[in-house]
């Protein structure tokens, strides 16, 4: 049953305003696939009322542990700083459809923006232990050096790794999508995997369409149920001018061709 309680074993600040959570949760540690998420209840009361979705950043099935990376952006995530080790969370998961893995011996280009790195770390981890022989090249962008959160965890699982920051405080100065454009131009990526802020994903999708490289993205949308029942997490589908898909069920990982990018809210 995709439902579990998870004990907070360890919480650490991964960067200002970002927490890395290590949870004991045998069921999810055993079952989760890269790109899936959990739907976490952050309070037993009404504040916040709804669960909050978070990508799974890593699993350690033998140790029965999972890792989440949470950026504090509002009232719900703000509570995490007050939760002591030993806190027991009620969570649903693993939920959603994760990344479709590359074929053997392909070169996969992973593009992460900020906290969007979480599901890509899980992907890189899975690829690094798989026998697919995939070459993993990753690009990680953020506003500043500090916001390149968990970059060592990410870098350590990739064959090649490049960072970009908007203020130039680490790696190249500029947007990660500018680096991506160059990489695609170079032409040796077989497929792209991306997660990050909405604006970045729009640009990644546009570039991959331009260079005709298959691309998957992990999307975000406000959720209520997380299990496909409320139809709250809709994003515009490429299936038709009025169609929608659910991030929680058909996603969060989509092929960029599944999404009607022109109908995304700016």
């Amino acid at each position, binding site marked *: *049953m*995709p*439902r579990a309680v998870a004990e907070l074993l360890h919480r650490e600040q991964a960067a200002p305003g970002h927490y890395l959570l290590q949870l004991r949760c045998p069921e999810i540690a055993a079952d989760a696939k890269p790109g899936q998420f959990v739907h976490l*209840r952050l309070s037993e009361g*009404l*504040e*916040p*009322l*709804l*669960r909050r979705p978070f990508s799974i950043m890593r699993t350690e099935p033998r140790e029965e542990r999972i890792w989440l990376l949470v950026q504090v952006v509002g009232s719900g995530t703000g509570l995490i700083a007050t939760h002591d080790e030993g806190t027991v969370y*009620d969570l*649903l998961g693993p939920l959603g459809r994760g990344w479709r893995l590359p074929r053997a011996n392909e070169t996969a280009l992973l593009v992460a923006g900020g906290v969007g790195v979480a599901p890509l770390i899980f992907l890189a981890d899975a690829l690094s232990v798989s026998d697919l022989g995939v070459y993993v090249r990753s690009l990680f962008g953020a506003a500043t050096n500090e916001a390149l959160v968990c970059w060592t965890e990410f870098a350590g699982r990739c064959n090649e790794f490049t960072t970009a920051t908007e203020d130039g405080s680490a790696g190249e100065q500029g947007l990660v999508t500018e680096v991506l454009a160059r990489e695609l131009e170079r032409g040796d990526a077989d497929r792209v995997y991306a997660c990050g802020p909405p604006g970045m994903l729009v640009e990644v999708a546009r570039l991959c369409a331009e260079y005709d490289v298959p691309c998957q993205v992990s999307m975000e*949308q*406000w*959720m*209520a*149920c*997380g*299990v*496909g*029942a*409320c*139809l*709250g*997490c*809709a*994003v*515009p589908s490429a299936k*038709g001018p*009025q*169609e*929608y898909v659910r991030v929680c069920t058909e996603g969060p990982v989509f092929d960029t061709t599944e999404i009607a990018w022109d*109908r995304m*809210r700016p």
Partner: protein
Amino acid sequence: MSAMEPDLSVELAGLKLANPVMSASGTFGYGTEYAPYLDCSRLGAIVTKAVTLEARAGNPPPRVRETPAGMLNSIGLQNPGVEAFIAEKLPPLREFGVPIIVNISGQRIEDFVRLAERLSQADGVSALEVNISCPNVEHEGMFFGTDPELTARLVAAIAETSAAPVIVKLSPNVTDIVEMSVAAQQAGADALSLINTLLGMSIDVEARRPHLGNVTGGLSGPAIRPVAVRMVYEVAQEVDLPLIGMGGIMTARDALEFILVGATAVGVGTANFVEPASTVRVIDGLAEYCRRHGVPRVADLVGALEGT
């Protein structure tokens, strides 16, 4: 079950329910989505998401947003249409072995009549719940549910056609909910559901735009419970029909507020998103309350408010 086990069954519009707790329309999908999280066969009834004649795409996202002790939604009437509903959604729903109440919606009276014709005869449909909180395209978009005459005409037309009991789901966005209830009763409704969501809106002040893609949406959850309880109370004083109370029910205590002011059954909506097993927890909590207070039948609690 021991001799002291309270009897949770209730009768409503000719339906015999094992207990008074249903899912609220639109918050429980078509039943199957929540099947991994609870034993759906324990529910008093399952109420489906709204079904319309043709498939509907729904509203532009974002569609949900949390508000203090509540949430706004503007799902719109996204659904696969009545034929796909009957072909694909109804068969697995029937498997739960509990009464299935199909929530229906439309833009003209004729839509509802055709839905009632088709659905009330479909195998496994126990009753129809008529969502009148929707605009009528024949009357300049006036909401069916905010005009007693329009409500009466709509309900009469459905009641005439339907082979199954007709439950009318009222909108709370009215000056006088009793007037609407009386209109529905006189037009032949077998029961009333109340309340649907309150019309609301919230703003992202940094981006200076509404949170919802559709600008406004329906407010649900604990925040609205006091309004919902008041409306059930008012209607229970004036109308003879059985009532299904809903609006912010999270626990058995909350459900009891509605039952004590006169609801025969209750719907659990937003709470499912918070805790998928909310319905069964409410059922268990009602049994516990009955045991603790020595109440043999939950039906004895309906309207059992003291000193008002």
